[in-house]
């Protein structure tokens, strides 16, 4: 009996050790890991990696930069401070973004996925290219409050980054172009296309009755704007909610200068929406049922709201529950638990 338990313990510990030994490769990124594939049914991506040749070393550099608070003025805030993996790379349970010195931003942190298909970035679409997107939070005084030149100085002063840039680019030149392209490799490879919804559409999974009803409702009421398979049409709309007078965020209008674009915001993707609560550009709704209650009551929409909202009509309690059941099928665990996107500093 005793010998048996000794043998069992020995067996278990060797299995555990084997597991740890294997884990040494957990943060290793191979050529195969940086292949960019367009998932079946997806449109042509907007971002072209042809001008930013994917390589494990550049990706690893981008990942480090994403997780390193060195990008902020006081080295307290990294990209990942607000784009947290547990929240589908949104800000877990926070309606508005947080920045240096305890400052609070003006908008809800969007979740990150399928960025290579984005025509523009931010809630107002002010940023026109994946590579230059990081410059916006980096220089925003309410977010990272930094300057590009100072970040480059700090990176240059770091032997670790000099080695990483050398590994990635073959020399120690640390430039904004290289920094931004490395970040674009990391963020551009965040592809979410293996949720239960995707498997269902491809005939590899089944939906419950509720989920099927939810999908049908979704397609007839929501999919014009939250267009499959990206679950956004990348356009800007007045989303029906009353502007928060404390924030007075004019959204798209601040970018175009056109009166008609005031208070319009980019249609967010709904992929991984289960994890990215709270919702809307200002994080006003704490959960999906609150969103359903708002959009399921036509009287809620303020005058001048997007005409597409009329399509929703009045939602019954059953409709709302079915829709939420469907939205939960958009959670993509393959993406959310992908080891490539884990914080490398925990090694």
């Amino acid at each position, binding site marked *: 009996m005793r010998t048996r338990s000794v043998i069992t313990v020995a067996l278990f510990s060797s299995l555990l050790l084997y597991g740890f030994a294997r884990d040494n490769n957990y943060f290793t990124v191979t050529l195969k890991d940086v292949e960019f594939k367009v998932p079946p049914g997806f449109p042509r991506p907007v971002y072209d990696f042809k*001008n930013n040749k994917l390589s494990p070393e550049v990706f690893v550099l981008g990942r480090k930069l994403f997780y390193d608070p060195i990008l902020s003025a006081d080295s307290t805030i990294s990209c990942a401070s607000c784009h947290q993996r547990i929240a589908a790379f949104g800000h877990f349970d926070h309606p508005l973004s947080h920045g240096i010195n305890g400052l609070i931003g003006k908008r809800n942190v969007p979740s990150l996925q399928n960025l290579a298909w984005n025509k523009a970035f*931010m809630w107002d679409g*002010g*940023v*026109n*290219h*994946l*590579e*230059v997107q990081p*410059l*916006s939070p*980096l*220089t*925003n005084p309410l977010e990272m409050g930094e*300057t*590009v*030149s100072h970040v*480059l100085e700090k990176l240059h002063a770091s032997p670790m980054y000099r080695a990483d840039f050398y590994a990635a680019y073959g020399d120690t030149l640390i*430039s*904004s*172009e290289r*920094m*931004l*392209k490395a970040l*674009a490799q990391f963020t551009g490879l965040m592809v979410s296309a293996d949720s239960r919804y995707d498997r269902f559409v491809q005939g590899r999974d089944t939906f419950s009755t509720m989920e099927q009803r939810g999908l049908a409702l979704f397609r007839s009421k929501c999919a014009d704007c939250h267009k499959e398979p990206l679950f956004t049409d990348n356009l800007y709309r007045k989303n029906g909610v009353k502007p928060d007078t404390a924030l007075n965020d004019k959204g798209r209008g*601040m*970018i175009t*200068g*056109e009166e008609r674009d005031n208070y319009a915001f980019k249609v967010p993707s709904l992929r991984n929406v289960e994890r990215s609560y709270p919702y809307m550009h200002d994080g006003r709704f704490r959960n999906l049922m609150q969103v359903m209650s708002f959009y399921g009551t036509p009287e809620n929409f303020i005058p001048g709201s997007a005409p597409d909202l009329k399509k929703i009509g009045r939602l019954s309690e059953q409709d709302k529950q079915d829709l939420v059941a469907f939205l939960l099928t958009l959670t993509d665990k393959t993406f959310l638990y992908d080891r490539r996107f884990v914080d490398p500093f925990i090694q």
Partner: protein
Amino acid sequence: MNLRVLRYLVLSMATFALPCLAFSAAGQGSMKVEFEHFLGDQALRVDDVQYYNAAGQSFTVSKLKYYVSNMMLYSTDGAEVSFGGYYLIDEDKPDSKDIILENVPAGDYNAIGFTVGVDSLHNCSGAQSGALDPVNAMYWTWNTGYIFLKLEGKSPASKSPGHLFEFHIGGYKAPANCIRTVRLQMPARRAGAEIYIKADISLLLSAPSQVDFSKLSSVTDFHNAPMIADNYAHMFSIVNTPGIR
């Protein structure tokens, strides 16, 4: 590739290259374009000289930077030669004011053209280096695009904090497109010549639109930026001799 094919290739390349060499000997070369900053007849001096605008408001200038690109030369026989490259002219950096046009074909050129600003393609091309590196602080991060021209200074008439004025002009999309092209006639020049281009800040602040510092001390908005852009489209002229640096 077999040896015979290679031999033919080398031979044919030599046949094509020979006339080119002859052409080069006949006057191909480089041309230097120098930008010089003035206020009326005076060479611009930052910070320590008081200037007056047409409304009699005094002011000093602390910063002048702008993008120049798409350089063109027009020859007397109607040929147009274009040169790539983006240049950031900065009053604080004397070297930045000289642009060398390489491989200017032989010919007599009696006009020069360029774009003030950055074309829309390069406002939408992601991370870039050199003159277009965002590290040069000529870039809007929240509404992507290059700042084509920065003019900053102080005027007692300005109602901004510290009596500062700050004109940051840019935008590549309607309705606030601030890309402007300039074409200047000049006495015929050949490769090897130097061209002096005067940028007159008094015109930037007055022609065709008069800037009143008490009403306009900060320009970032869609209405006023194109107005200043129309002014910078007319502030350049050809001068025959270099000014005082």
